[in-house]
């Protein structure tokens, strides 16, 4: 279905998305200018630490943001349609049908008073014109496809009767029951043990290959990202700070935050005396620094960092929100450029259109 589309064409294109929360303490700009693109059939890994806005980005795409949150601006183009301005009923038809989502905690996302089969059948019935029985057959079929043994019996069981790994399989079965073109998976394996995580990742890979669906995989685990993704976007404090294909991000990371993240994780088989660290902590969303949001923790901080860096192209297909020169060296600017000079430089540098 998606094979005819060119590789360059995006299935989902998010441009300059801003989702803000008006809290009693002030305006939290949880997502503040996020741009992403997901190619049909490909997997985009979205990496970042807690509070960087990766989950809010996903919920914005699904239009599941509730008050006091609000999508302030930006466009979300899915298959040529603008999701932000789609009427509610059309969005409901699309949600769970062409775009499905699975969450981190399978227990809280399944309804405890309905059987697993009922919950999957409900999704099927909502999006296709089939009989109750056909919907239930489809539910049992889906359960067997996600590798649940004895699916007929499991379909009659309630979520509390299943283990964590099984529940996540039920979530995946439900999400895939409508053959979505895009699956948004928000930390799908974070709550699971490592051997169960391996089962779920293998399952997602197998299903991805067979259905040709695209995946937006949100995680903080760089191992999972390296394993699953074709492309990677790194987020920090509500913004995408770096994006490229997975090999480029892991081998030639440009942004000091991405480099710091990659250097700070202990790796199996590479024992080292000390781990690299990123100093300091993530800034308070109510009190963000001016200019570059990472400058207070950045080992390369320069005077120009007081001016907001644009997301610009480093090499074709590789964007980074940092003033450093593409080779990682100091930019060709004066030692301490005035604000006006920095502004001018910002305008002359290519602002990428990711």
């Amino acid at each position, binding site marked *: 279905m998606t094979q005819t589309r060119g590789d360059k064409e995006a299935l989902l294109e998010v441009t300059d998305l801003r989702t803000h929360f008006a809290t009693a303490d002030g305006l939290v700009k949880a997502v503040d200018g996020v741009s992403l693109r997901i190619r049909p059939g490909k997997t985009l890994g979205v990496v970042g630490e807690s509070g960087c806005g990766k989950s809010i980005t996903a919920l914005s795409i699904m239009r599941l943001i509730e008050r006091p949150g609000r999508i302030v601006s930006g466009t979300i183009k899915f298959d040529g349609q603008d999701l932000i301005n789609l009427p509610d009923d059309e969005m409901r038809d699309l949600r769970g049908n062409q775009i499905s989502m699975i969450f981190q905690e399978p227990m809280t996302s399944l309804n405890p008073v309905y059987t697993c089969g009922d919950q999957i059948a409900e999704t099927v019935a909502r999006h296709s014109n089939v009989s109750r029985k056909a919907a239930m057959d489809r539910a049992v079929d889906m359960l067997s*496809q996600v590798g649940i043994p004895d699916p007929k019996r499991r379909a009659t069981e309630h979520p509390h009767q299943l283990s964590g790994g099984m529940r996540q399989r039920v979530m995946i079965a439900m999400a895939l029951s409508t053959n979505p073109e895009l699956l948004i998976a928000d930390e799908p394996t974070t709550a699971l043990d490592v051997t169960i995580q391996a089962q779920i990742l293998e399952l997602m890979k*197998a299903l991805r290959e067979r259905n040709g669906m695209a995946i937006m995989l949100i995680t903080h685990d760089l191992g999972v990202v390296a*394993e699953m993704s074709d492309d990677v976007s790194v987020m920090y404090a509500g913004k995408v700070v770096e994006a490229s294909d997975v090999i480029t991000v892991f081998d030639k990371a440009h942004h000091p935050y991405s480099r710091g993240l990659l250097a700070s*994780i*202990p*790796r*199996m088989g590479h024992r080292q005396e000390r*781990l690299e660290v990123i100093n300091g902590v993530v800034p308070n969303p109510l009190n963000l620094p001016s200019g570059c949001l990472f400058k207070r923790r950045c080992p390369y901080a320069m005077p120009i960092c007081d001016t907001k860096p644009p997301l610009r192209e480093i090499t074709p297909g590789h964007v980074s929100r940092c003033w450093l020169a593409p080779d990682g060296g100091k930019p060709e600017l004066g030692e301490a450029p005035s604000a006006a000079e920095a502004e001018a430089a910002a305008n002359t540098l290519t602002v990428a259109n990711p």
Partner: protein
Amino acid sequence: MTEIRTPNTLTPPPPAGAAGIAEADTLVRVDNLVKHFEIRGGMLGVSTIGAVKAVDGVSLSVKRGEALGLVGESGCGKTTLGKVILRLLPATSGRVEMDGQVLFDIPAKGEKQRPAVYAGKEAMKKVRQNMQVVFQDPYASLNPRMSVGELVGEGPLVHGMTDKKEREALVRDMLSRVGLNQSHIHRYPHEFSGGQRQRIGIARALALHPDFIVCDEPVSALDVSIQSQVLNLLNDLQAEMGLTYLFIAHNLAVVEHISDRVGVMYLGKLVELANVDDIYANPRHPYSVALLSAVPEPDPHRRKKRIILKGDIPSPANPPSGCRFHTRCWLREQLGRPERCATEEPELRDLGAGQQSACHFAEEISSAAVESAVTTSAPVPTSTI
């Protein structure tokens, strides 16, 4: 339970057949430790209808100055083991000795009748100065109504440091050791980030200058960039203060980074124990092999094939007979399902070079065996979509 106060010199020798003669450099010795949580049921909910066998016969020793890592998946009993060693939970049976002092020695069911021995209140209080714990959740493990000074200074106060000035000096010293600002002494936990709270928890554990610290998942609640800060801190403190760690975690890369030796647990049993380099390079228990192969590596060039274990971890209330891993074991499949795995419980046995494994067929693990397990266990579901 009656407490029998036994002076240190009168404690009986360790039961024969346990981990052997005590070495001079052993700080903590654990012999055949068992912890069962009773399941109550019946009509009035008072009769015992079963037991969750959280820890079921674990023996190990922690050498002075080392970091012993303990890995395993949720429900394998690693946290319970740590708590029972510290006597934060009463043991069902078994013996723990800390720096020559027996904390408890409780005969197992069926063992020759002898009275259970517990260290007395005074002796226990003294030992507790020497063994401390850092918990997983830096939000739940700090009392929100106590200031940092009170939290870190509570241990010294309980143990007789009544002078306020002296205590404050100690707390300030501890805060600077863990990388916190001394001026934070009057602040409360909610004013700190997760990583800083974990530093407070570490300062609290250090305040009594213990030799032995149980670190129970100390970094798993922290973000990646903060995790490395805390790991470096734990490493530095160990070198500076000569600490001995029992480091409990599920993240295998973290455990490899911090540990000298590593134990792998599965369903209440220690299934493998070896030096860190040996166990990561050459695991000798099929569960360790699968566990290590399951970890996704942060390197897109090496998307490795892995051994996918079938099914879930069985319930510790009703563990499989024989070897507890036999229901999911890839090696047993390869060997044509030998009966022995299902009937005979394997002992942790020495395979040379300090590597111990509790597998009847540990010698059969080879790179060829692992290779074929990797390629045969692809769980691709049948296609009907």
